[in-house]
Structures are given as structure tokens and as C-alpha cells.
């Protein structure tokens, strides 16, 4: 019945709509960005307002190595997905593995930084405003990295069992949007915490 609406002699124009996965992921990123924005605002608002306890410049060391690892992982994941799209499954597996390693290094590095801050410098989430906002913001980001890393590990396992095919490249491309988002957030967190806040 619907076809009666269209005049019979017209050729139907191509009907192309954006991909669901991408739009869904961008929507999720929008929502997550709003959450991060609030934590960043709280961090910026409370800079210099702690009544006592360690101050950022006393205890924070700039995590250059961690940052390089995390940001490089954006490049490696991009290479991985590109390789898969071109049916180079082994290359995909290699770059995916490197991504996984880089992400893990970042998390371990963050863990070590926190261990140092808590046990050597006496800064916990309840110490002062700096402690509260620092652990919340960096922690929220690390949580997002963890979730991403879990997905990466799962995919790695599938890849080892040779279950990942070029047809999956679109899905992994959508996932890589999430990973790029996580890296993008780190740039902001890094700037706010280690550059502005110190």
C-alpha cells in the first residue's frame, strides 16, 4: 500500500541513513562527556581551596610515560581496525595486542601513582578537597579505561581463537570511537590536573 504513494515513473533516490552503531556510540559519548564535565568543573572550582593537607604541587608528578602510552594506543587501535578492514587479520591481531599492552601500562601506572600518593604522601580521597576531586576525576577516567580494556581483552581472546573476521571491522571501529573518547578525556584530565591545577 505504501508504494502507491510514489509516482510509478520516478526512480527512487537512494535512501542512506547514518549507521546505528556510530550514532549510538556518539550519543553515549555525549552523555559521558557531560558527566566528565561536571567532575572537571568540580576539580577546577576547588583548586586552591583545600583547608589543609598536601597540595598538588607538593605531591603530583607529571605522568609523561603513561600519557604517551595511552595516546599511542589510539593510533595502534586505529591501525588495528584498518588492518582488519583490509582483511589482514594477523596484522590486526598484532596491533590489537599492542593496544592492549599500552592500555594496561596506563592502568598499572595510574595504580602505582596512587599507591605512591596514598602510602608515601598521605593523600587519600578523604584527606582534603584536592584529594577528593583528584581521585574522583582520575578514578572516573581510569574506570572508563578499565571498561574499555575489558572489551579489548575479550576481543583479544576472540582473535586468538580466530573468531574475529573482517566483517567485524565495523563493530570494532565503533568501539574504537569509545577508546578515542577515553584518550581525549585523558588529554583534558591531564591538562586540568597536572598543568592547570599544579
Amino acid at each position: 500500500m505504501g508504494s502507491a504513494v510514489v509516482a510509478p515513473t520516478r526512480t527512487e533516490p537512494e535512501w542512506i541513513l547514518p549507521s546505528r552503531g556510530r550514532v549510538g556510540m556518539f550519543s553515549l559519548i555525549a552523555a559521558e562527556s557531560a558527566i566528565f564535565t561536571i567532575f572537571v568543573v568540580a576539580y577546577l572550582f576547588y583548586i586552591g581551596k583545600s583547608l589543609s593537607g598536601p597540595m598538588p604541587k607538593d605531591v603530583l608528578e607529571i605522568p609523561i610515560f603513561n600519557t604517551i602510552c595511552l595516546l599511542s594506543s589510539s593510533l595502534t587501535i586505529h591501525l588495528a581496525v584498518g588492518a582488519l578492514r583490509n582483511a589482514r587479520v594477523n596484522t590486526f591481531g598484532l596491533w590489537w595486542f599492542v593496544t592492549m599492552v599500552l592500555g594496561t601500562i596506563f592502568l598499572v601506572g595510574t595504580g602505582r601513582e596512587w599507591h605512591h600518593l596514598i602510602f608515601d604522601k598521605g593523600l587519600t580521597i578523604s584527606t582534603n578537597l584536592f584529594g577528593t576531586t583528584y581521585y574522583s576525576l582520575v578514578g572516573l577516567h581510569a574506570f572508563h579505561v578499565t571498561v574499555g580494556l575489558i572489551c579489548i581483552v575479550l576481543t583479544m581472546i576472540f582473535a586468538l581463537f580466530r573468531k574475529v573476521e573482517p566483517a567485524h571491522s565495523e563493530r570494532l571501529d565503533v568501539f574504537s570511537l569509545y577508546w578515542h573518547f577515553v584518550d581525549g578525556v585523558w588529554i583534558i584530565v591531564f591538562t586540568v590536573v597536572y598543568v592547570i591545577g599544579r
Partner: protein
Amino acid sequence: MASETIAITAVPGIDRPISERLHDWIVTVDHKKLGILYIVLALFFLVVGGIEALIIRIQLIVPHNNFVSPQVFNRMMTMHGTTMIFFVAMTVLFGFGTYLVPLMIGARDMAFPRLNAFSFWMTAFSGLLLYFSFIGGNGLYGAGNAPDVGWWAYAPLTARAFSVGHSTDFWTLALIVSGIGSIGTSVNFVTTILCMRCPGMTLGKMPLLAWLNLVMGGMVFLAMSPLTAAQVMLCIDRYLGGHFFDTQAGGSAVLWMHFFWIFGHPEVYVLIIPAFAFLSEIVPVFSRKPIFGYPVMVAATVCIGFVSLSVWAHHMFTVGMNSYANSFFTITTMAVGVPTGIKIFNWLGTMWGGKIEFRTPMLFCVAFLFQFLIAGLTGIMLGASPFNWQLSGSYFVVAHFHYVIVGGILFALFGAFYYWFPKMSGRMYKEVLGKWHFWLFLIGFHMTFDSMHIPGILGMPRRIYTYEPGRGWETWNLIVTIGAVFQATGVLVFVVNLLWSMFKGEPAGNDPWDAWTLEWSTSSPPPEYNFATIPVVRSRRPLWDLKHPDDPDWKYE
């Protein structure tokens, strides 16, 4: 006439066992069933929230009343607000959107059906979690129980020091979980609308309901997330010793207010925009004309979406911001009234020159127009910062926002119920009962909420469990409470009508209203697959084109 079905109607026959049908509903990912589940959940909480309102009103019917203790009153006040906003309004509007959007854009389901189901169940469980607080919230000295910090939960009242026990935590966690559900639903709305429209339905040709749900979805991302962030911060304060809102450690109580209202104000636009959508679908059909100024309606909605993100501190005019901040939020608040007013004028323009049929859905929509006009104007009054210094925190504000939510959103919702009930159930409701519902509720609404403005002007603050006699507040509080009884009766008639008509109503057919959007082209209720073939459209009113092949819309749009 498009009553020629393009769907294969279900063959009535073998009755499946009830356990199988129940299981079907529990595991469903069909947007229509999920939509109905959302709506049923909302109706349940409407009754619960309504009872809480009645308790509040009975306590306030005379000064120094002893119907409930102050503790119980404060819990009722908190739970009434929280329930109505999160578990009635958001839930029912998501329900209608979930049901209608795929049908109206010619799709078979939402973009992410399993996410859809997940979001619904998150919402349902978070409602249960909130209400579990009545039995699970006890802490020291029995000070716990349901949350009693108000639905806006200002810091530092929510700190462990002032909010002993777990009642506040139930509030916080329930809203975090419900927020996850809401964000999931909005991801679905936005993706569905952008990615699953049927061929020919460009963004400029989709029904206004789809446009408005798209804007609403975007706003949920930007609005719900700040609340989630603030709730997480509150949890960190309460359980990990954080100091986000700990004034003793240098934290700021006003920061919570900012975060809450950055959520809270766009939230009310999230609620009203789907109500606008209902108006934009119902008023044209019952005026027998297309919506007046479709592009302007879209532009106005998008404009409202953006401007509403900049007005939040009009809830904070009294916290002592400087005069520049107060002026800024005054102008943005007044500015958002402009696109909103434009929409009212466009609905008026739709009715103008038409042939209006006053069936029950239209009655509710016409009442909406009058009432939303008044609500918008009292909003302008509240937006004038100095006037706000007198009116805020008083019953004037309570009257204003109930005027918007009940007089606006709930009336539009009732209209939507009656309009789409035939499509969802396949049966027609009883028009007589519909009209009884309308008049009872209208009288009750005006008795309550017109009168409620006066105590505010006479200096009665809100959120008080009792008040002093001799200040001129007694008579008005009495009238307000009596009006609530009328409203409750109207809602009762409504529920009776729904239930009776579901089983005994006349079969409605595909298109009882002679309407023009795609949902009316399929059977009532639609089959699981919605349409036998995906429709191809050429204008904003595909069924008008079918019914008027000599005068189709696409010649003029």
C-alpha cells in the same frame, strides 16, 4: 480510506497459557510491549505518588494538624516529588515515545531493542529500590526510612552528619540506576530517529513527535548526566569520606545546587517537550488542518533545547549570587519564554480556520493551551529575579510548577492516552467516561492550583509540615485540599475507563480519528512487525496524501 490494512491482522484463536504470555512480556524486546510496560509502571507510580500528595494535603488542610508526624510529612514530600518526576513523568513519556516513534517513522523497532528492554528494567528496578527504603532505610535511632531530604536534596542536609541512616542513600542509588535507564532510552531514541526512518522521510518530513523526541533525547544526555555525576559525588562524600559538598572542609553547598539545577532545569524541558509533541499530533487532527508552521515549530524546539541549558540558576536567585549573575539568569529565563510562546501561537494558528472536534483528546489539549499559557506567564514572573526573592521557596512556586506539570504535561498525557488508546488496545474507550474524567479533573485542578498561588503571595513557604493560624492561609489550604479530592476522583474514572474499555470497548479499527501519520496505517493493535512492507513517504502527512490523491501535501510543502 487507509483502513485497507497493510498488515495481516492477528488471527484470534488459541489462547496461550498465562505463564507463557507473562513470560513473553518479561523477556520482550518489542518496542510496543516495552512502551506499554513503561506506561503501566508509570500509572502504578502515579497512584502511589497521588496517595503521597493526598497525605500531604490532608496534613495541610488546617493549621497545626496532626494527621502525620513531621518526619512522615517530610518523607511524603520527598517521595512525592521524586516519584512523580522520575517514575511517573519520565517513565510515561519514555513509554509513549518508545511505542510511537518507530511506528511514526515507518520502522519495525527501535535501533537497539535489547538496550530498550534493559533501560526499562533498570527504571523499574530503580523504582523498587527507592520504595524499598520504606522498610530498608533505618539507621541510627530509627532516623532512617524513606528519604526525607526533599527531591532536590540540598547539601549539606544530605551529609552523613545531618542525614543519618540509609534513607538518603536509597534516594541517591535509585536515581543513579534510573539515570542509567534514561540515558539508555535516549540513546535509543536518538539513534532510531536518525538511522531508521523509512525511505522518503527526511528530517524535514518526519512527524513533530519524532523531532521533539529527538531534541528530548539529546537533552537527556546533557541533563541527566550532571545529576548522575552529582549523585556519584554525594556517594563519595557519604561513603568514602569525600568533601565535595562538605562545608566543614571548605566544600560548597552551592556547588551541589548548581549541579542539581543544571540537571533540574533541562529536566523539566525534557518532560514538557514530549507533551508538546502530543499537542502537535492531536491538535491538527482534531482541527482538521496540518500543524501551523512546522519548520518554526522545529526551530523553536531546538532553540528551547539550547536556551534551557542556560537558565538553571533561576532556581538559585536567593543564594546570594551577585547582581550580574542574577541579571544573566533573568534574561535567559525570560528569553526561553519566547520560543515557548511561539509554539502556543502555532497551535492557536493550527486551530484557526479549522473545524474543531471536541472529543476527549482535544478537550485535554485545549485545556493544556489555557493552562500552559498561565504556567508560562507565572514562570516569567518567577524569572524576574527580585520578584523571585519573594516568591521562591513559597507556595507560589509550587503552584507554578504544578501548573506546568499537571496542567500542562499531565493534561497532554491524558489527551495522548485517549488518542492512542484505540491504537494500542484495538478498542475504543467510552467517550462519556472520558468527558467525566475531563471535567472532574479540570475542576479539581483549578480549585487546587489556582488557589495555591495565593498562600505564596501571602507569605507561606513551601516544604512545611504545618503552618501558623491567623495569617490568612487557612481558607486557601482548605480549597487546595478539596480540589485534590476532585482530581483523585477524575483519575479514578480514568482508570475505570481504561480497564473497562480494554476488555469491553468497541473495536476501534486502524484509524478511528481519520488521522494522517503512519501509525494509523497499520492495524490496531499493530502486529509485531509493525508494517507488512516498509512504507515510502513523500510528505509530512503520508495518509493525507493517500486519502486525498488529488490534493496531496507534497504539492504544497
